[in-house]
């Protein structure tokens, strides 16, 4: 036995950088077991433990943050500034999702431990994606997240529309994973390595990039990523899934996973295939223009707020891609800023739907927002801030996000692209401002007061005010993103 | 032993030599199967205070020959609307894996047809394949009873395979090898060095799962003659039925010899390490010990059948999933800890 063990050279990997992941996994398993022994009345313990997990993970990430890039587990795990910043926002956004979801789930008899356990495993999947540094871990993180999302959508078992959404999501998601995997396998075949660093080094060498098979790989990878991000023409699942899933799940799907998807794009395209930038830039331009156009135009026709926000998401993805396709550090930083801002705004938007809903009534139609000012001036103001921000009106946060990506595009000498983006942003402003009009200038049909818990109202207020405050002082967040992106690009 | 013969008969082409070896393994198995049926009837007979078959030949010793002849003479009836090809294929698919598994079973040091590294895995893979024969038989018969038997059998075999696989992983951890010869050699010392002591729960799980995997009483719901006539082979007759019969008994012998090899020291003498007795029994060849131990486990199979009432189907599932799998998983951790802690006298 001894000789056998000795013949295997085993070096224990440095687990310290992955402590947040290990912590979240352990806590998710603990919560899973604890939840078994709880009655419905004590279910709040699951909820509090989930929040504590996110808090603990945030503390761990913060205390382990050095600003330096650390590789571990034989290069399949990376801890750098981008990973730490994105992880931090993932915890924040997910904590808000959990808080928003509580009352909604209780009212509808959906307050089960599985929502929180799957949510935490989803967080783990996002963390793995954000910190992935090999094709293998990227794919596994993606699947871990996706599996949690499919299950969460289907969790509302008695709802036909939710089951339909889950089925569509599952089939299209599996297709996208297959495409991505196919691209990855070709990439592996050509470069002979799963490690992102090695692939990047291989493709950076001159002359290595003119290979037809490589184009094939890039195309497949981009199609897979576009599916996951929801960029046109691979966006079909987004409206149905957002509409079909129960609102807390929509909130979850719409917010934090986009942060992880951004990291995915950065790791794969920028870190792994920067040598092929000229090739993927064109593809991203097409995706971005189509997304901005289709998202903003179709959103106008939507009467359902969840569907409208879904198309708004598609449009936002278009803007997000603008920063990445410039291929320079400032562009990446602008995109990262955009995705963080987007997550915060989406959180507020869907949070508002939850706030206005109550048992047996979903405030998901535009009419439900009529005369909100009479019912609750404070939350009408919050909603107005969010809508102004999404439309990109100064001085709210959304304006700076759009400004940052447009600036990056102009700097990259693609003025026409910036003009197109502004044009569609103006079209998009229409449907955001329409909600403000409904809230302030129409008569209320509903007069019931808002019934949500104090925690929800508090976080909702913080959410709205943050959009305003960060909009007035965007420099801190901008500097954070610029710092996180310092190691990317040239 | 085979090596010495190998050199002596160096002139014969390899292929012929392999065929001879295969025959040397398969023919005795067939013989054992035949006489195991007689043993079964005799043992159960005496347990039930009867005598058992005693008419054909001296003390009934020719009974299996007579049974075999009878089965060979009978017509193979193929039911109406049965799927002809699959109907005939099924018994072959049942028998083939249970015979192929013997390729890696050692009877003494070096006395093995194929001394491969992953022999435990190989056996596990092959035994898991015999379920196809049962399923196909049930489906191709175009009969309700046969189909229910096939479904029962499929679910049962898949469930117990997990526990069985985990038990084998325990052996693998203890021995540090998947080669059965290595597993036996690792148990040298005395009968207390055999793996049944440190792996007692795994041995129990393995043996009981083995009974379940072979669809023997008290887990014989796949046949369940009081409920579904004869289960998956209700429509079979003559030689096709005989093949199912052969396979069942060959599998029993296989499970028994594997128990002997993995948990009871295989060909090692039980008197090893005992001062006087060890010398006294030194003349006994290793193969005799293996066969004696195998015979004991085979007797247990028969004993179970005579003793226990049949399990109800949901109880079988409960036992497999809720009792055996947790036990094996826990004991894997214990076994791992024992190996790491170099617990004497097994892992020092």
């Amino acid at each position, binding site marked *: 036995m001894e000789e056998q063990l000795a013949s295997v050279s085993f070096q224990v990997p440095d687990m310290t950088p992955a402590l947040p992941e290990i912590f979240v996994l352990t806590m998710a398993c603990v919560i899973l077991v604890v939840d078994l022994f709880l009655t419905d009345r004590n279910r709040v313990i699951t909820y509090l433990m989930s929040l504590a997990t996110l808090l603990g993970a945030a503390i761990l990430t913060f205390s382990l943050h050095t600003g330096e890039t650390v590789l571990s587990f034989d290069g399949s795990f990376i801890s750098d500034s981008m990973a730490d910043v994105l992880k931090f926002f993932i915890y924040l956004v997910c904590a808000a999702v959990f808080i928003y979801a509580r009352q909604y789930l209780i009212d509808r008899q959906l307050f089960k431990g599985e929502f929180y356990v799957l949510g935490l495993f989803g967080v783990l999947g996002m963390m793995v994606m954000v910190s992935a540094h*090999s094709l293998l871990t990227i794919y596994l993180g993606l699947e871990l997240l996706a599996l*949690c999302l499919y299950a969460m959508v289907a969790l509302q078992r008695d709802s036909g529309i939710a089951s339909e959404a889950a089925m569509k999501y599952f089939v299209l998601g599996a297709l996208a994973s297959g495409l991505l995997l196919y691209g990855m396998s070709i990439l592996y075949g050509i470069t002979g390595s799963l490690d992102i660093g090695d692939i990047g080094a291989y493709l950076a060498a001159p002359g290595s990039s003119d290979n037809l098979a490589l184009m094939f790989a890039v195309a497949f990878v981009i199609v897979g990523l576009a599916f996951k991000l929801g960029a046109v023409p691979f966006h079909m699942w987004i409206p149905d899934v957002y509409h079909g899933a129960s609102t807390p799940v929509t909130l979850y799907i719409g917010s934090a996973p986009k942060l992880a998807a951004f990291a995915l794009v950065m790791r794969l395209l920028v870190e792994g295939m920067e040598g092929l930038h000229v090739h993927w830039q064109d593809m991203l331009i097409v995706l971005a223009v189509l997304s901005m156009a289709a998202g903003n135009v179709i959103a106008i026709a939507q009467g359902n707020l969840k569907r409208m926000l879904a198309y708004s998401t598609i449009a936002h993805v278009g803007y997000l891609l603008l920063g990445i396709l410039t291929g320079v550090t400032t562009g990446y930083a602008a995109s990262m800023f955009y995705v963080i801002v987007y997550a915060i705004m989406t959180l507020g938007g869907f949070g508002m739907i939850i706030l206005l809903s109550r048992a047996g009534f979903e405030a998901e139609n535009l009419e439900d927002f009529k005369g909100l000012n009479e019912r609750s001036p404070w939350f009408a103001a919050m909603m107005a801030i969010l809508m102004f921000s999404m439309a990109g009106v100064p001085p709210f946060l959304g304006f700076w996000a759009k400004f940052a990506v447009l600036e990056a595009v102009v700097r990259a000498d693609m003025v026409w692209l910036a003009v197109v983006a502004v044009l569609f942003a103006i079209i998009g402003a229409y449907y955001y401002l329409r909600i403000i009009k409904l809230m302030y200038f129409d008569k209320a049909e509903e007069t019931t007061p808002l019934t949500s818990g104090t925690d929800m109202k508090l976080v909702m207020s913080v959410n709205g005010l943050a959009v305003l405050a960060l909009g007035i002082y965007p420099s801190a967040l901008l500097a954070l993103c610029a710092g996180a992106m310092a190691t990317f690009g040239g | 032993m085979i090596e010495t013969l190998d050199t002596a008969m160096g002139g014969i082409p390899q292929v012929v030599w392999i065929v001879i070896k295969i025959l040397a393994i398969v023919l005795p198995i067939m013989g054992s199967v035949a006489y195991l049926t007689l043993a079964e009837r005799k043992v159960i007979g005496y347990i039930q205070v009867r005598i058992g078959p005693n008419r054909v030949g001296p003390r009934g010793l020719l009974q299996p020959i007579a049974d075999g002849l009878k089965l060979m003479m009978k017509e193979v009836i193929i039911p109406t609307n049965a799927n002809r090809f699959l109907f005939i294929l099924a018994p072959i698919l049942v028998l083939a894996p249970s015979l192929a598994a013997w390729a890696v079973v050692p009877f003494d040091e070096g006395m093995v047809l194929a001394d491969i590294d992953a022999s435990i*895995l190989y056996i596990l893979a092959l035994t898991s394949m015999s379920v196809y024969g049962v399923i*196909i038989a049930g489906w191709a018969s175009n009969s309700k009873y046969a189909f229910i038997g096939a479904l029962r059998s499929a679910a049962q*075999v*898949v469930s117990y395979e997990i526990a069985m696989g985990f038990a084998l992983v325990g052996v693998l951890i203890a021995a540090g090898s998947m080669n059965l010869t290595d597993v036996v050699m690792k148990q040298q010392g005395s009968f207390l060095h055999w793996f049944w002591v440190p792996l007692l729960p795994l041995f129990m799980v393995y043996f009981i799962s083995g009974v379940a995997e072979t669809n023997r009483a008290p887990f014989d719901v796949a046949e369940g003659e009081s409920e579904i006539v004869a289960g998956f082979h209700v429509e079979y007759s003559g030689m096709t039925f005989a093949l199912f019969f052969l396979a069942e008994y060959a599998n029993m012998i296989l499970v028994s010899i594997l128990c002997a090899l993995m948990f009871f020291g295989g060909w090692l003498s039980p008197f090893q390490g005992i001062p006087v007795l060890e010398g006294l029994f030194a003349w006994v060849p290793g193969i005799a010990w293996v066969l004696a131990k195998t015979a004991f486990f085979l007797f247990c199979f028969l004993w179970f059948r005579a003793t226990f009432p049949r399990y109800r189907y949901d109880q079988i599932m409960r036992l497999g999933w809720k009792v055996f799998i947790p036990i094996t998983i826990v004991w894997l951790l214990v076994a791992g800890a024992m190996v790491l802690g170099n617990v004497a006298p097994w892992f020092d």
Partner: protein
Amino acid sequence: MNIEPIIFYFFSAILVAASAAVITVRNPVHAALSLVLAFFTSAIIWVLLEAEFLAITLVLVYVGAVMVLFLFVVMMLDINLVPLREGFIRYLPVGALVAIIMFVEMVIVVGSNRFGLDVFGAGMKHGPDYSNTKELGSVLYTVYVYPFEIAAAILLVAIIAAIALTMRRRPATKFQDPSKQVLVKRNERVRMVKMAAENKTTPNE
């Protein structure tokens, strides 16, 4: 005489035939059985590649467990094949065209001129001491321990999801508690009653 190519071509032919049968045969049970055959033959080809551990695992996991459950389900389905085949002829030209285009593209892009032997070189042959199992084991828990653990988490999530989506507690269902059944005492089941002996009387007709 080198027997390896003969073995390879023999089993490859079976593999291709079995795979073709999976998608062409009419009976779903036959299709599933063909898939079993395809798995088994690919395992044999893997053995030729010196990947005996993977080969045996393929048989153990896919042939021995996954396909059994698959077959289990397929056998119980009562599929009416006629509606499934409706429009088959109508869609055939389009489907065939797409398939041919994809095939040609694949051959152009990932054909042997890019991934062939002259680009990557022939695989190395190992001696009799080489153990594929040991090689796999030594990297699986060291170099690839992180992906391995994530894969475990994925499987755990799959279990949670499957149970959360399908398990329904029906309050009306009655369950037995085996441990209670085992621990039952005589007093709980049998009541001993003392009765005075009956007088023997002659029946009066």
